[in-house]
């Protein structure tokens, strides 16, 4: 019976705002240990790009960490990031290869989205604790063992229903275990979809597949191959300004959709399919030494769609010039526009019908088409199209790790790693929206350089190219990134003291290769850029004092440098090879210390940490409608300090009732002043070079304080129920650096209201949520005594249906410097979903 219950814990997925993870419970120690070990954390694509991951798991192998448990189950709704770290400061290995993208360091969760049933076997370390497979990152370091023979031998069929990103999920998994000839097979798949998700105009179609084959060779070798992928199409949601949310009377106003023939059509769709094949060879050389060698290949595609337009009014329904606030000087008009926008949904959304009407009436002759003199092509020239922004990505990874013990007291682990990633970025025409063709011209260059015929050409080798559906246009370039590293870790174990020291040395190399010659940047858009090479080192060390089997103290420290990512180095890779000046690696110093109690009736984790991250770089990019082009803010000298403490408590109150609580109390600041260089995509020169007064500004988009407390009741009769209350505070909105300069506040006293409206960073209101979970397992046995089970599960998140929780937001990067009106381009926000339910059932045999 108990076994069955554990089984139910293992197979039931929980979805929390697009993040899928193992359900929470806290009944018996054994159950919990298993549950945590099998926690599957998954992020959907939006979350990865907009906030970042919070892959958290157990701290020490000596027992489960109640803090991490709370962080993964309860804090996700607030987009909590552990210790305020960015997503690239965590890493994940699968079957021996690193799964962080080489281009931005983010873990490629979307490749195995929906495959929780076969991605359960995990090994997690936090901070700079030692681990057995890599040097590690300041955040969490996770190993997933998805090999066929590691999967529980069972067949599972499941169905779930929810009101979140998707409504329906069906899943199937079949694992054979080893047969007599040493073969093991695993097959898993799921299909999840919603024709309309929680947010209007969004939708979700995602299938996933996984095939695993293992072959035992002799008694000391295991050869494994897995192939998996998750093609997913979604209709996206855009952040919006408060004014629009009030007019639409919902905080989930989504500017990305509009009716077409009475059906909702989303202009910002995303398609992603990044499948992987991983071959792993596991060799046990002797009783104390093993060598794991793995190679992985991934060839995939990611497409985001959007509307492109040429010599036509801005198609975005929430464009600031269309809103009432743009007409504040005329109260009659203000009211008239307000009425129209609040009464007419179509006025608030994209007007597809108008795009078709405009395109069908747009008869034009393009002269010298396709670069041929006198070649005049006439027809309906689209003013609006849907474009695909494509990234074709190829990745090859190789990794080898040796793990050995020398005597009773020393364990040595060392590894070699190499990876190569090539991304190919380009645009294609998705839909001409009723027109006959589009022309490959750069509308951003047109107004400024109308005498220079070359400037407006996206590709001067093929000027005035006529575009039909699926034709490539706009930018077209490759990014080549290669990275190699070697590392070693020595771990000494004694009766009351463990200590370790580890080092890592790596190189990173990347360059851009332009495939078209852009008219504005004819000299540095085509061909190879300079190659950027970085040599980086890292060291870490730590000591644990074991008072007894229940009480531990530990201290870890580390120093490392980290190469910048190409997207933070290239100022505008879509147009040219230009890079930031004085490029440097990031430097991170981190220290942590803590106390751990592992007693049968109580578990306590108390940790403190202090981290500095220096010399970071970033490039922010946005469309400036007065310059009529993209403007880039290149930031340097981004220094951060993160410090705080974490507490996790899990206490068994009685045979059936347990109490758990967690608190993350941190402060994440920017330290010192950043430097900004402003450039535009229609000129080669620097528009502005200035200092950003960022000292003391907060790292945005995560609560810096998060608390939870909950009670769980578990019946002997195979059911359980839990309730948890959560509280989040100290969440800040991302700020526009160019608003924090001397010129924006010149002449204003620092007690001036206007001064503060420009300078101060916005803090979102604290928030409170309640979650409840319940589950029941029905055990079935047939005549052959084969165990079968039917599992039911239900959860409600945000029980109080609080729809006013801002889950993320940013200040627009434009600032009205002339009038210093911060409300002309106000901040845009996302809100956390209201009440969410999830019902699930599975049949296991």
């Amino acid at each position, binding site marked *: 019976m108990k076994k069955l219950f554990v089984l139910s814990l293992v197979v039931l997925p929980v979805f929390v705002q697009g993040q899928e993870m193992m359900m929470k419970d806290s009944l018996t120690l054994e159950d919990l240990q298993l549950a945590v070990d099998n926690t599957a954390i998954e992020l959907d694509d939006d979350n990865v790009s907009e906030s970042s991951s919070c892959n958290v798991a157990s701290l020490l192998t000596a027992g489960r960490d109640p803090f991490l448990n709370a962080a993964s189950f309860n804090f996700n709704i607030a987009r909590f990031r552990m210790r305020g770290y960015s997503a690239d400061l965590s890493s994940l290995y699968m079957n021996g290869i690193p799964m962080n993208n080489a281009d931005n360091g983010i873990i490629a969760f979307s490749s195995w989205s929906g495959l929780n049933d076969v991605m359960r076997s995990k090994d997690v370390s936090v901070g700079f604790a030692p681990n057995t497979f890599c040097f590690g990152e300041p955040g969490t370091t996770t190993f997933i063992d998805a090999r066929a023979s590691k999967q529980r031998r069972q*067949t599972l*069929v499941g169905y779930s229903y929810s009101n979140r990103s998707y409504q329906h999920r*069906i899943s*199937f998994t079949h694992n054979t275990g080893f047969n007599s000839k040493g073969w093991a097979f695993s*097959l898993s*798949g799921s*299909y999840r979809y919603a024709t309309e998700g929680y947010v209007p105009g969004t939708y979700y*179609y*995602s*299938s*996933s597949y996984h095939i695993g084959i293992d072959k035992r060779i002799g008694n000391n070798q295991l050869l494994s191959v897995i192939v998996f992928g998750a*093609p*997913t*199409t979604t209709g996206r949601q855009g952040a919006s300004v408060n004014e629009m949310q009030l007019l639409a009377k919902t905080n989930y106003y989504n500017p990305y959709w509009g009716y*077409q*023939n009475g*059906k909702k*059509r989303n202009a910002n769709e995303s398609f992603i399919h990044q499948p992987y094949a991983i071959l792993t060879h596991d060799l046990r050389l002797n009783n104390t030494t093993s060598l794991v060698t793995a190679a992985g290949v991934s060839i995939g595609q990611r497409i985001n769609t959007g509307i492109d337009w040429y*010599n*036509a*009014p801005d198609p975005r329904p929430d464009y600031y*010039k*269309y809103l009432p606030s*743009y*007409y504040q000087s*005329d109260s*009659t*008009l203000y009211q*008239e*526009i307000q009425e*129209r*926008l609040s009464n007419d949904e179509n*006025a608030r959304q994209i007007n*597809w*019908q*108008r795009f*078709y*009407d*405009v395109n*069908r*009436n*747009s008869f034009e002759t393009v002269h010298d088409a396709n670069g041929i003199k006198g070649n005049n092509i006439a027809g309906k020239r689209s*003013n609006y199209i849907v474009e695909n922004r494509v990234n074709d990505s190829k990745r090859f990874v190789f990794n080898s790790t040796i793990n050995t013990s020398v005597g009773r007291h020393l364990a040595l682990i060392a590894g070699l790693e190499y990876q190569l990633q090539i991304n190919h970025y380009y645009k294609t025409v998705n*839909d001409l929206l*009723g027109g006959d063709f589009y022309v490959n011209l750069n509308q951003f260059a047109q107004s*400024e350089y*109308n*005498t220079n015929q070359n400037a407006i050409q996206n590709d001067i080798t093929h000027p005035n190219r006529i575009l039909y559906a699926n034709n490539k246009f706009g930018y077209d370039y490759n990014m080549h990134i290669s990275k190699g590293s070697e590392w070693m870790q020595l771990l000494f174990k004694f009766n009351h003291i463990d200590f370790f020291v580890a080092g890592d040395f790596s190189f990173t190399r990347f360059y851009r290769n332009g495939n078209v010659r852009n008219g504005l940047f004819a000299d540095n858009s085509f061909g190879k850029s300079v190659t950027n090479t970085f040599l980086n080192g890292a060291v870490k060390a730590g000591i644990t004092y074991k008072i007894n089997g229940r009480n531990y103290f530990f201290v870890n420290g580390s120093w490392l440098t980290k190469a910048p990512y190409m997207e933070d180095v290239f100022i505008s890779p879509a147009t040219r090879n230009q890079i930031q000046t004085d490029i440097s690696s990031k430097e991170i110093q981190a220290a942590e210390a803590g106390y751990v109690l592992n007693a049968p009736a109580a578990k306590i984790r108390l940790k403190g940490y202090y981290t500095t991250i220096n010399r970071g770089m970033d490039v922010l990019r946005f469309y400036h409608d007065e310059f009529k082009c993209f403007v880039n803010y290149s930031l340097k000298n981004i220094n951060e300090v993160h410090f705080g403490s974490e507490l996790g408590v899990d206490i068994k109150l009685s045979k059936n009732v347990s109490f758990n609580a967690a608190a993350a109390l941190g402060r994440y600041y920017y330290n010192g002043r950043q430097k900004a260089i402003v450039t535009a995509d229609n000129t080669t*020169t*620097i528009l*502005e*070079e*200035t200092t950003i007064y960022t000292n003391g500004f907060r790292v945005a988009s995560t609560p810096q304080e998060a608390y939870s407390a909950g009670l769980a009741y578990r019946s002997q009769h195979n059911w359980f129920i839990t309730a948890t209350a959560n509280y989040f505070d100290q969440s800040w909105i991302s700020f526009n650096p160019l608003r924090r300069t*001397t*010129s924006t506040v*010149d*002449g204003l006293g620092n007690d001036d209201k206007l001064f503060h409206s420009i300078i101060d960073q916005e803090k979102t209101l604290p928030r409170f949520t309640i979650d409840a979970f319940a589950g029941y397992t029905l055990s079935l046995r047939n005549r052959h005594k084969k165990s079968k089970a039917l599992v039911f599960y239900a959860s409600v998140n945000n029980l109080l249906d609080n729809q006013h929780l801002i889950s993320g937001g940013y200040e627009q990067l434009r600032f009205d*410097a*002339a009038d*210093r009106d911060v409300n002309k381009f106000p901040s845009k926000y996302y809100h956390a979903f209201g009440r969410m339910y999830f019902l699930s059932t599975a049949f296991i045999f």
Partner: protein
Amino acid sequence: MKKILLFFVLATTASFCCNKKFDEPPTSEIETITANFTIRQLREIHAYNNIEAITDDKIISGIVTADDKSGNFYKQITIQDETGGIVIKMDGSNLYTDYPIGRKVFVRLKGLFIGDYNRMLQIGAGKDNSNPAALAVTPIPSILFNKYVVKGSLGNTVEPILVTVDQLTEDFQSMLIKLEDFQFAPADTSKTYGDVSLASSARNFTIKNCAGSSITLRNSSYADFCGIKAASGKGSITAIYSIFGATKQLLIRDTSDIQFTGKRCNSTTLASLNIADLRAMYQTAPVTIPDGKKIKGIVITDKSNGNFEDDKLVIQQGDNLCGIVIHFTAAHNYSCGDEVEINISNLTLDNKNYGLQVCDVPLQNAVKTGTGQITARVTSISELVNNFKNREATLITLPNTTISDKTNKQWNGLLTLTSQDATLRHFALSTAKFVDQPYPQTQLKSITGAALSVNQEQTLMIRNMGDVDSTLPVPVTRADLIISEYIEGSSYNRYLEIYNASSTSADLSKYIVRLYLNGAVKAKSSSKLDTLIRTPSLAPNGIIVIKHPSAKAILPPGVIAYISDVCNFTGNDAITLEKNGTVIDVFGEVGINPGKSWTIAGNDNAAVDKTVRRKSGIVEGNTNWQQSATSEWLIFGKDDVSNLGAR
């Protein structure tokens, strides 16, 4: 089991195969509305410089006759019915995508306003009371377009009404009209339709027909045709008739409205005349030049440096050939080095101040045909004096010459040139840019200028400092960009003026202005000049005005000030002008904080709430601020922007 498997294979492939195409919508149906009011009736309810709210359910209809596709119209369309035309102001760009020429529209007038802009009638959505002397209507917001301006059928045509200029009464306002047999003035045919430099927002032309009747053609500098050259022939023009106060003007939709393809009026061919032959016509009294004659030569005077009157120039036919003075009826636009062809038919040849000249030449008689260069004749003073009649109005270089005069040792007025015991007068007008500068007091390697009879006496007139070749290093003229004006006025009224004092066009990509705050040695803000004004070069005598982002002063008409943080100065900050990384001019001293303000010409509060102008004689930068502050600047009152953009 197998069924389940099959099901999952199907489900897995579902998202590949089932991306259905969106159904293409049919074209929008045209709303059927009937007009119950005519444009003429609407116009009649308006009184000039008044704004009337329209409160009745009146609907007019009309066909769009002008849209914003070419950019010559901005935020407005013009519609016309059988009774008249009117402008509809609409707050959006690229209106042509919804309201192209030929579209029938219905305007629901209730809730709208009718007003006029300098007597040009317009419909809008609100009142703009900001200037009580010129009430205006505000444009209809984008979100309300469909509510007020209902789209009707496409592809309708409006035939332009053939008129003469005299027939154009106010009833024709905003109507599509056509004039026959018009042409641009000869001098305008070398110009582009608009001002590509965007120095002014529009360019006006006076076009004429053969009978001498004329009208203004106004083109926006933001029109996409503004870089095209004006048509050189004669023919018909189709345009929207517009007025600006009492001025009749025409607005074209694009250049296909101008069909000046025929032969120009009176285009009898002119015969070229050698300037030597022209000079020979003169004996002692004024003569009238015969009909059908033209001359051609290269301008050898430099109006831009001020040492020649702006309605006169001297052309020389070629190296060692003759030249002559041309006296226009008004100020001309030709620079030194322009090749000019002048119709001199029936004009008068007379010997007046500066020597033999063609008098009262109408500007349109001259046309620039190219550029060229005259190599000055190198000779001695005695040779020149003896052959002055033949050398008059030509370019002369006199080697080994010494300048002398009375007392002040500056260029102004009459000087004496001496070489090998012979002497010649030199004359500089008080308008010459270099007039306040000291002349070199040692023997010159050479001096170059035009030989002219100033007040009937043999004289040389140099054009600019480039004509003076000194063996001494002292007066080396490195004329370049300079900081020519500094304004620190009330509130954020802070401006800086940069002037190209050289005689060549400056490559702006080489120049950066930087601001150093409160004695700092590191620049706070910098602006590259080409980026700032989005133009690669600055012509000789060209001026750039830059301003603080919040500067609010009303500048002289036509002066554009570019926003730069470099204007973030408060009086004690240093400004430098760099060329290729080398500082060539300063205002203030980098690294020094003078306290509240720099001291200029003895005034210790000269850089706060003041306008500070570089003296007109200063044509080169001075990196020695102490020296520059003592002698090179003039101080004016607070917020005096009257001279910004001029020098």
